[in-house]
């Protein structure tokens, strides 16, 4: 009898949870639903997005909200699984009835949610996912990207590498879509800018590869002039660690997108390799504009850590939402989208415009080299070159072609 009552009890609790899940009818708010990965290594990046968004939203709400309404947001953890994330997104749309969707670092999930957003006619702001397909081949009216992607990074990386004297290259990276996309992005653009470059060979390891030493030694045996390392978020830190341990960075110069980012360099502390070329969307120490310094100060005060690039995405999202609704004049999705197209906001990296044609934010890229510096217990980027947003964006013609128009 005890077991039976236990089962009945569990069902009762479950039913109670189900019923209380129904909405509490509070005052009308603008509801934002964020689906992202808050478990595992990816959360280093995604926490910044959520935290900065919260900071910005609290500020907006304190000043009266948007069109008289407060912004409210809920988060769902996708645990880096696309089926869980997609289900959560559907739950946010159908049950929580959010006005805007935001997320996610997982590109496959971003594409799936983008598709959902199109079907349900809900705006989806993409943060962190670096797939160029989101605003490229698979772009549509309801999806906006406020983060960089492999096409932008590829062009920036190539621009920087074209200025260097290297001719014989090796490409190595994570064997999944992003890895290949970024490698192709850099290489194709590099070949266009500097036709005499040669590709000696390629190595691809599985995502989450535990030991890079055998790959590094194989690459060194081939003796390239430089290496393009196409790792995704998860493998950047371990690869840099292996590079330092094998002295890879001292033997062969290599380029890695996001190598200069805080999220990548902080965990390695002073043991990070120097001389690595990297591109990034944000540094908290550069440019030392008033906007940036105020932003860093507020973030540090609230969270006791320096903001990394995700924080800028979160901040921008809140700003875009606020200004687009205000420009639209009412809480209406179609008007919101129309207002958002072509809108410019002030951000810690300067003025950023949301290009109307493909809904891609025109973010500037910063290319630099890692180096130890006074006053920090992690490496920072030096010799920073700023590449303005409009110089890294694919042309509208290229987007049209990708979308098959």
């Amino acid at each position, binding site marked *: 009898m005890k077991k039976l009552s236990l089962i009945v009890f569990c069902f009762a609790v479950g039913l109670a949870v189900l019923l209380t899940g129904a909405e509490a009818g509070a005052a009308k708010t603008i509801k934002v639903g964020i689906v992202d990965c808050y478990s595992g*290594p990816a*959360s280093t990046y995604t926490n910044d997005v959520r935290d900065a968004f919260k900071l910005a939203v609290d500020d907006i709400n304190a000043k009266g909200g948007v069109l008289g309404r407060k912004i409210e947001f809920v988060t769902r953890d996708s645990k880096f699984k696309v089926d869980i994330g997609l289900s959560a997104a559907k739950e946010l749309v159908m049950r929580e009835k959010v006005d805007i969707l935001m997320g996610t670092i997982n590109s496959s999930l971003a594409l799936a949610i983008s598709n959902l957003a199109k079907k349900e006619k809900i705006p989806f702001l993409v943060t962190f996912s670096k797939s160029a397909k989101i605003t490229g081949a698979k772009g549509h009216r309801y999806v906006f990207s406020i983060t960089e992607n492999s096409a932008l990074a590829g062009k920036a990386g190539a621009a920087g590498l074209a200025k260097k004297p290297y001719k014989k290259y090796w490409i190595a990276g994570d064997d999944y879509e992003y890895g290949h996309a970024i490698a192709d992005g850099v290489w194709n653009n590099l070949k266009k800018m500097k036709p005499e470059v040669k590709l000696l060979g390629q190595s691809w390891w599985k995502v989450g590869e535990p030991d890079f030493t055998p790959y590094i*030694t*194989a690459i060194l045996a081939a003796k390239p002039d430089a290496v393009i390392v196409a790792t995704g978020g998860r493998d950047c830190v371990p690869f840099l660690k292996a590079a330092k341990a094998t002295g890879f960075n001292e033997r062969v110069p290599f380029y890695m997108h996001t190598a200069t980012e805080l999220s990548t360099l902080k965990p390695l502390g002073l043991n990070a390799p120097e001389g690595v070329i990297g591109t990034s969307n944000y540094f908290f120490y550069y440019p030392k504009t008033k906007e940036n310094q105020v932003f860093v100060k507020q973030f540090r005060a609230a969270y006791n850590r320096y903001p990394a690039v995700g924080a800028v995405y979160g901040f921008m999202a809140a700003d875009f939402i606020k200004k687009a609704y205000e420009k639209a004049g009412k809480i209406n999705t179609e008007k919101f989208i129309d207002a958002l197209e072509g809108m410019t906001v002030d951000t810690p990296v300067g003025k950023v415009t949301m290009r109307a044609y493909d809904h891609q934010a025109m973010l500037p890229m910063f290319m630099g080299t890692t180096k130890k510096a006074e006053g920090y217990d992690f490496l920072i980027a030096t010799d920073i070159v700023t590449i303005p947003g409009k110089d890294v964006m694919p042309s509208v013609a290229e987007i049209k072609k990708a979308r098959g128009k």
Partner: protein
Amino acid sequence: MEFASNITIAALFQQILVGLSRTTILFIVASGLSLVLGVLRIPNVAHGSLYMIGAFLAYTIATLFGGGSSGFWIALFLAPIGVAIISFIIERGLFCHLYEREHLMLLLFTFAFTLVFGDLVKLVWGSDYRSLAAPVFLQGSFSIFDLPFPRYNLFLLIIGPMVAFGLWFLTNKTKIGKIARAAAVDREMVGAVGINVSWVFAAVFVIGCFLAGLGGALVAPTQNITQGMDHSIIIEAFLIVIIGGLGNIWGALLGALIFGLTDSIGILVWPQFAIVFPYIAVVTVLILCPKGLLKSTW
């Protein structure tokens, strides 16, 4: 599909060395798993979680003691002990009541621990990357034929055979080792002779998990310490144990060698498809020798 055109003898030799140092970690983890599987007949899926906890503990202990070289050695000593204590608590508290159940239940129970430990680690340590530095004299690398061989990998190459010898000594030359081997084959008989089988099992389980923690602490300076470590190691460890023969330490060594070497040579020879080499090796072995290469205890 291109074969690397730079396979020189030097490069091959270098890759073999690298593969061997990788074998060390795989062997240490797999031998622990093999012990537990062979003697207690528990397919311990949580072995990977204990490996991960070993790495996180090593990080915390090292940081507590200043993070430098001394921190590392203390961590290397204390982290596996910490894992052993945790495993002792689990064994006495829960597992010892389940020995009579069928294997699938035991496996699922340990899988439950994987789930629980995974989230507990996240609760305790947060989800940021952790990074542990090797002691200074083990950083950097030698040059062998002009190719770098990290000093830490050499350290692993030395540790591996030491652990293997230690385990062999333990299982073959000590009294408890002999009792454990007997209990693996016939636990009732051992009980009938008057030996407390339950404590033997506890000891074996703790030693097996100690090895998992040791593996984790050793691997910590070379990779990201993060969630997901448990998943990636456990499949490899199980495959090694299966192809080596359940409960057979030398089998674990052989399996780890096959795994580590096919992987690193594959990377040199056919970098794009290196991932499949170890799996093909495993499938081949299992088709030819279904019970594993060396004798298993059951």
